[in-house]
C-alpha cells in the first residue's frame, strides 16, 4: 500500500531521475565489481530467505487472459537478455527448474518414462473420496488411496476415450525430463464398487456453498466419464504435489510476498523457453492457472516451489473434446488475421484448415503437418513467450532435440493407449515436430556450443545445428582472441583472428598463463545456414591451475545487434 501511495505522490519524472541516478552510481561502483566471481558459473540458485509468510492467492482467469490478450504486461523492453541464467548462458537448477534432459549426465530412456513417479499410482483397494468437483471443464474427485496418499482423479470425456488422460500422462513425462516441477500422473483404473465416500467428503452445492457428497453425486460424475467395456473407468490419477499450495504463478512480474522471487517472470529463460516446449507438445493452454506454487521446506527453510500442472489440454486434446482446428495457429483474437478473415468474407482460408488429421478418437487433432514452430501460438499471448529471444529458443530447442526417438516413444507409451496405431501417430508426430523445432530454432542464431580450451591452447567447440543434422556445416569459422580484464571488463586483442574449416582452433601465441587470468574468444561462422551465424558468440575462460575453465558465454552479445 505504501508503495502505491508513493507512486501516486512522486511524479514519473522524479522516479526516472532517481532510477538514472541509481544506475550511474551502480556503474561507478561496479568498476570494483568483477565480471566473474570464483563460483561462476553457478549450477544452482539457492533460495536464502524464509518464505513462510507467502499467502495463498488465486489468479482471476478473465483478468489474466484479458490483459495478456489486449495488452502487453511486463517489461516494455522486448529484447532484454534472460535474467535467470548463469554466466555461461544456462539456467541453473532452482525451485523453478532442474536440468535433466541436458544435465550433468545423460538421461536414460527409462528415466524419461519414469518421470517424477515415486509409485505406480494409487494403492489398490478402497479409494475414499474426500471431495468432488462437479464444475469446471473436467469434473473429478479427490481421493485417499488405501495407503492414505491423496490423489486427484479426472476422466476422459465419453466420446474421446484415452484422449485427455493419455495426453496428460505422456506430456507430464516430457515436461519432467525438460526440467520442470510437475505432478506425478498415472493412468489408473477405477471401479464404482471400490469407491467409498469419506465422512467429511464435500461437493459444491447449487447454493454456492458446500454440502456432503453422496452416492448420487458420485454416480452423476461417473455418468459423464468414458466407461470401459468391463464397467471400469480409465482415469488420470494425479498425486498432490508436495508442499502447501499458495496459488499459481504469473508469467510476468515477481511475486511481491516471496523474498526469493527476484527475477521478473517474463525474464526467466525457463519460462520464455517454455514457448518452444509448448509448441512441441501443442500446449496451447500454457497460462497462469495451469501452474501452482507450493511452500516446501528446503534445508530447514520454507521456500516457494513452482510447478506446471494440468497437461490434459495438450497434443490433440482440449480436455473435453479434440482441440479446435485453429489452436496452435491463432490466438483466440488475433488482430491482423481476424481482420483478414473479416474483410475477405471468409475467402481467406488459413492453411491449418487443410491439415488432414487421422481418425483416432484417442488422439484428437494432433499433426506435424503445417507445424511452423516460430508461428505457433498459444490460445492467449504469454508475456514470457513474447520476450523469448533467439538465445532463449535456442536453449529450449537444444533440450527438445536431446530427446531421442526412443525417449519420445517411451514417454508416449506411458499414456497407455489401447490402439497401437494411435500411440505410434502421437510419437511420430512428436518426433516430426521435434525435428521442425530443430530446423527453426537451432539455426536462427549462431549455434556454437560447448567451447572448451585445453591447457595447450587448443580450442574446441561444436555446432548444435550440425550435430542435430538440421543444417550443413558452414564454410568456415573465424575465432578472435582477447585478453579479458575481469575487474574492468576490458578486452585486448591477442593476435589476429584465425580461420578454420572445422570446430576447432589453436590459440595464438601470447595467451596468458597466470592462474586466475582470463581469455575471451569470439567465434562466428561464415557461409552458414543463416546470416545470424556471422554474429559471434562470446566465450570467456579462466585459467585454473593447468587448464582453462569456461566461465562466461553469450550467444547474443549486445542483444545480437552487431
Amino acid at each position: 500500500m505504501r508503495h502505491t501511495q508513493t507512486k501516486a505522490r512522486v511524479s514519473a519524472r522524479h522516479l526516472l531521475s532517481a532510477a538514472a541516478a541509481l544506475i550511474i552510481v551502480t556503474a561507478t561502483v561496479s568498476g570494483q565489481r568483477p565480471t566473474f566471481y570464483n563460483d561462476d558459473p553457478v549450477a544452482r540458485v539457492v533460495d536464502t530467505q524464509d518464505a513462510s509468510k507467502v499467502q495463498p492467492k488465486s489468479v482471476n482467469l478473465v483478468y489474466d487472459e484479458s490483459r495478456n490478450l489486449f495488452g502487453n504486461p511486463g517489461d516494455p523492453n522486448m529484447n532484454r537478455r534472460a535474467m535467470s541464467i548463469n554466466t555461461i548462458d544456462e539456467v541453473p537448477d532452482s525451485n523453478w527448474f532442474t536440468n535433466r534432459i541436458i544435465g550433468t549426465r545423460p538421461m536414460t530412456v527409462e528415466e524419461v518414462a519414469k518421470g517424477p513417479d515415486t509409485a505406480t499410482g494409487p494403492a489398490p483397494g478402497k479409494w475414499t473420496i474426500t471431495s468432488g468437483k462437479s464444475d469446471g471443464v473436467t469434473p473429478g474427485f479427490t481421493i485417499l488411496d488405501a495407503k492414505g496418499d491423496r490423489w486427484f482423479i479426472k476422466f476422459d470425456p465419453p466420446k474421446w476415450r484415452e484422449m485427455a488422460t493419455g495426453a496428460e500422462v505422456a506430456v507430464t513425462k516430457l515436461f519432467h525430463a525438460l526440467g520442470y516441477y510437475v505432478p506425478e500422473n498415472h493412468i489408473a483404473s477405477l471401479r464404482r464398487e471400490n469407491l467409498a465416500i469419506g465422512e467429511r467428503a464435500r461437493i459444491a452445492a447449487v447454493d454456492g456453498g458446500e454440502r456432503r457428497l453422496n452416492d448420487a453425486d458420485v454416480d452423476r460424475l461417473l455418468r459423464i466419464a468414458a466407461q470401459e467395456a468391463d464397467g471400469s473407468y480409465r482415469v488420470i490419477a494425479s498425486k498432490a504435489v508436495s508442499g502447501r499450495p499458495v496459488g499459481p504463478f504469473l508469467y510476468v512480474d515477481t511475486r511481491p510476498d516471496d523474498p526469493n522471487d527476484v527475477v521478473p517472470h517474463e525474464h526467466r529463460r525457463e519460462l520464455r523457453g517454455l514457448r518452444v516446449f509448448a509448441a512441441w507438445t501443442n500446449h496451447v493452454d500454457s497460462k497462469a492457472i495451469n501452474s501452482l506454487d507450493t511452500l516446501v521446506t528446503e534445508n530447514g527453510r520454507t521456500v516457494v516451489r513452482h510447478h506446471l500442472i494440468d497437461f490434459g489440454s495438450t497434443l490433440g486434446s482440449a480436455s473435453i473434446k479434440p482441440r479446435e482446428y485453429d489452436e496452435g495457429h491463432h490466438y483466440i483474437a488475433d488482430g491482423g488475421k481476424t481482420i483478414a478473415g473479416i474483410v475477405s468474407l471468409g475467402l481467406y482460408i488459413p492453411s491449418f484448415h487443410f491439415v488432414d488429421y487421422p481418425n483416432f478418437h484417442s488422439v484428437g487433432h494432433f499433426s506435424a503437418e503445417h507445424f511452423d514452430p516460430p508461428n505457433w501460438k498459444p490460445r492467449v499471448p504469454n508475456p514470457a513467450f513474447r520476450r523469448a529471444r533467439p538465445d532463449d529458443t535456442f536453449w529450449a530447442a537444444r533440450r527438445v532435440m536431446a530427446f531421442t526417438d526412443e525417449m519420445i516413444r517411451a514417454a508416449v507409451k506411458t499414456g497407455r493407449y489401447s490402439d497401437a496405431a494411435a500411440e505410434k501417430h502421437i510419437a511420430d508426430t512428436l518426433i516430426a515436430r521435434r525435428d521442425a523445432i530443430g530446423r527453426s530454432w537451432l539455426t536462427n542464431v549462431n549455434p556454437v556450443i560447448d567451447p572448451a580450451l585445453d591447457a595447450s591452447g587448443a580450442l574446441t567447440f561444436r555446432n548444435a545445428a550440425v550435430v542435430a543434422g538440421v543444417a550443413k556445416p558452414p564454410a568456415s569459422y573465424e575465432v578472435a582472441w582477447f585478453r579479458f580484464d575481469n575487474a574492468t571488463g576490458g578486452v585486448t586483442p591477442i593476435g589476429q583472428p584465425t580461420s578454420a574449416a572445422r570446430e576447432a582452433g589453436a590459440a595464438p601465441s601470447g595467451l596468458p598463463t597466470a592462474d586466475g587470468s582470463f581469455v575471451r574468444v569470439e567465434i562466428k561462422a561464415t557461409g552458414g545456414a543463416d546470416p545470424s551465424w556471422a554474429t559471434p558468440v562470446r566465450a570467456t575462460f579462466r585459467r585454473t591451475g593447468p587448464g582453462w575453465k569456461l566461465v562466461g558465454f553469450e550467444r547474443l552479445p549486445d542483444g545480437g545487434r552487431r
Partner: protein
Amino acid sequence: MISHRTISAVFVAATLLAIPAAGQDSRAAELAAQQADKATKLRPNTESGTEKALEWFEGHITDPSTLYLRFGGIYPSAGFAPGLGYRHAAGHARFDVGGAYSLRGYKLGEASVKFPELAGDKLEIETRVRWMDATQVPFHGVGNTSSKDARVNYGLESLEAGALVAVEPVPWYQIGAGIARLNMKDRAGLGTRPSIETFPSRPPLLFSEARFTHSQVFTAIDWRESSGYSRRGGLYSIAWNDFKDADDVFNFQRIDAEIQQALPLLKEHWVLAFRGLLRTTEVKDGQIIPYYLLPTLGGARFHRGYSDFRFQDRHVMLLSAEYRWIPSRVLDMAFFVDTGKVAAERRDLDLENLKTAYGIGFRIHGPTFTPLRLDVARGDEGIRVHLTGGIAF
C-alpha cells in the same frame, strides 16, 4: 511520455545491478543479497481493483444465490429494460424473483421455482408467475400487405401462472408439457404513434379481457453443440398449444414447428445454416384469436428485415439461410437472408409474395453462448439494425 512500466523495468535492472556493488565476493552472495534486499520490501500479494471488480462481476453471473442486475426480457418492443432480481438455490430448487422497467414504460414482475436437475438431470420442473405491462406494442394491421406507415400502438397487460415439466431421457431428445392460467387485457397504446382504436379496421373485441387456460405439449430433437452457439447439428421441434378461454370467445390452438440445421465445411471454416419456421393456428367458427396473440413476423429472431410485430396473421412461415465464416475463435460473421410471409389461410403459405431481406452479421461468442450479435438487414422497408444477444437461429 514515460510509462510507469518503463520506470519499473529501469528500477528492476538498476536494483539487480546495484546490489552486487555492495561488496559481495561470490555469485551466490550476490544472489543472496538480492533476495535479502527484497525481503525488506515485501508487500502483500493482493488483488488489484480490476481483479476485484471482475471477481464481483463473475460472482454476479455465476453465483446461484445472489442479488443481480438484469436487462431486457419484458416483451418485444420494450426497448432498454434494466431490472433487479434475486436468485437462490437450495437443494434441487432454484428460486428466482425479479422485476424490470423499460424506458418505454414497460413493467415486469416475475417469480419462479425450478427444479432443473431431477432424476439425474433427466427431469425438469418449473413453476412460474409472471406479470407484464406493455405500454406501446406496435400494430400494423393483419395480413401480408399491411403498411409500415399504418402503425399504431396498443397497451397489453398479462398475468400468467403455470407449471411446465420436461423430460430429457437422452441429451439430444426432450419431451414435455405445461399448463398455465393466462389473463390478458389490451388497452389504448401510448407513445408517439396513434392508439389502436384509431386504426381504420379495428380488431374485433378491442379492449376486452381474456382468461385463458394455456396447455402445451412439445417435443424436440436437438443435437446442436449447444443452444447458445453451435457450428454443427440440428434442431427439429414441434409444440402444440391450446388456448381455452373461460368466456368461450377466444378459443384457439397454435402449432409451432421449427427445423434448424448447421453444416460445417472445411473444418468449420465455413458453416451453412438453415432454418424453417412455421406457426399456424386453428380456430373454430365463431371463435376469435386475439390480435395480440396472432403469430408475428419481424424482429431480431423472426425476420431481420422488419421490426418486431411488423406482420401478423393466423399463419406465419419464415425461411432463413446463413453463410457464416469464422475470422477468429470468438467472432463469427455471416451473410444471411430471411424470407417469409404471413397468411390468413394455411394454403397461402407458399413461395409467392415473400417478404425478403438480406444482411450481414457480426457475432461475439463463447463456446456455448453468444453475448453480442449485430445483424444489419436490408429489406423493402429499408435498413434495420439489430443489436442483441443470443443466436439468430
